[in-house]
């Protein structure tokens, strides 16, 4: 996955992500695609979540899936979740076993914690606190943005709490965050380096060209776009604009 938060030269915050899903879940040699990714592309829906007759927040989901990978509360905050790989005994499957044994009975499932944050938190700061400190069953990166230029961060999660919170203002380029599936202070595996090309493409885009078109083109560039990419979602929290574009990478394209 690749999540992007970028602040344009007027201070407006934009948030987007590529969802890559289905690694090692069946390669179809006839069409050169991952089987699960191909099926999931047909199941993408946008959802307006209503409470008290009003839209509370927006998300996109796979049909039949009740949790949330990406959500936007207009005028308040947006969150996207990227998978985090950790050592074997600290992953999601071990988390499930601990939950079943009662050791982590109150811990939250990742996509349901995202949903609860959308439903119960009313500001960027509240969301940041909730996503950082609620016990959960699997590691993840939460990429969170608000509506002000300094409201953007990567929350690097393990079971109990955040291992770190990386603010946009601490970045080498303090106007954008591009997060793939590695801790912010760790160099990506050379075979899976989507960070370096993504960062370079963002710098080519430049702050003055930040917007749906510019970020979409960055996320449509290889290898941030790859055979696992199922969609790109583009979000502007102030206006509530929320666009999901189906994606694929036909032909010669890196498999992940």
């Amino acid at each position: 996955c690749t999540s992007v938060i970028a602040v344009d030269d007027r201070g407006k915050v934009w948030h987007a992500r590529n969802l890559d899903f289905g690694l090692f879940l069946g390669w179809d040699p006839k069409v050169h695609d991952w089987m699960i990714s191909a099926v999931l592309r047909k199941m993408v829906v946008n959802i307006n979540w209503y409470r008290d007759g009003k839209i509370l927040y927006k998300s996109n989901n796979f049909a039949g899936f009740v949790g949330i990978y990406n959500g936007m509360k207009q005028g308040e905050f947006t969150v996207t979740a990227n998978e985090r790989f950790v050592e074997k005994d600290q992953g999601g499957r071990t988390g499930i076993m601990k939950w079943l044994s009662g050791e982590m009975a109150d811990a939250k499932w990742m996509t349901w914690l995202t949903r609860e944050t959308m439903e119960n938190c009313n500001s960027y700061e509240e969301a940041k606190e909730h996503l950082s400190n609620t016990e959960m069953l699997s590691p993840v990166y939460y990429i969170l943005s608000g509506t002000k230029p300094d409201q953007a961060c990567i929350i690097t999660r393990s079971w109990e709490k955040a291992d770190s919170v990386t603010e946009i203002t601490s970045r080498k380029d303090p106007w954008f965050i591009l997060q793939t599936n590695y801790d912010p202070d760790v160099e990506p595996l050379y075979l899976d380096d989507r960070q370096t090309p993504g960062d370079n493409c963002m710098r080519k885009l430049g702050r003055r060209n930040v917007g749906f078109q510019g970020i979409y083109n960055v996320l449509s560039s290889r290898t941030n776009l790859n055979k696992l990419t199922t969609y790109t979602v583009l979000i502007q929290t102030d206006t509530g604009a929320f666009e999901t574009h189906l994606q694929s990478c036909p032909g010669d394209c890196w498999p992940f």
Partner: protein
Amino acid sequence: DLPAPYSDHCILDDGTNLYDPKNADAVPWYNVDLDKPPKERWVQIATDYKDHIHELIETLKGLILPSHPDALSLIDDFFGEMNLKIAQPYQDEIASIAEATDIPVGEIVMYNIFYEIFTV
């Protein structure tokens, strides 16, 4: 660097623009009303996407079963029982999706906890 043609390529280098806002119309919008009982919230989506949800589950089972012959009963029994431990409103929401799609509840649970299962 990856070998060509798999190497990185920022399309901004070519002046290419692939963004067309009209393409977003391909993804439909639905409403989920949190004021409704959990069992009623997902019926529309589950009904409309019944065939695709079946296809996904069958594809998953096809990938798991060859190496683990007992996987199907494990999914149906193990994850089916697990749903009874899952907190509300998710337990009822998942059960209603299973009902609307005629898929065993354990298989819908497995789909919904995909992230935890496959995060290693």
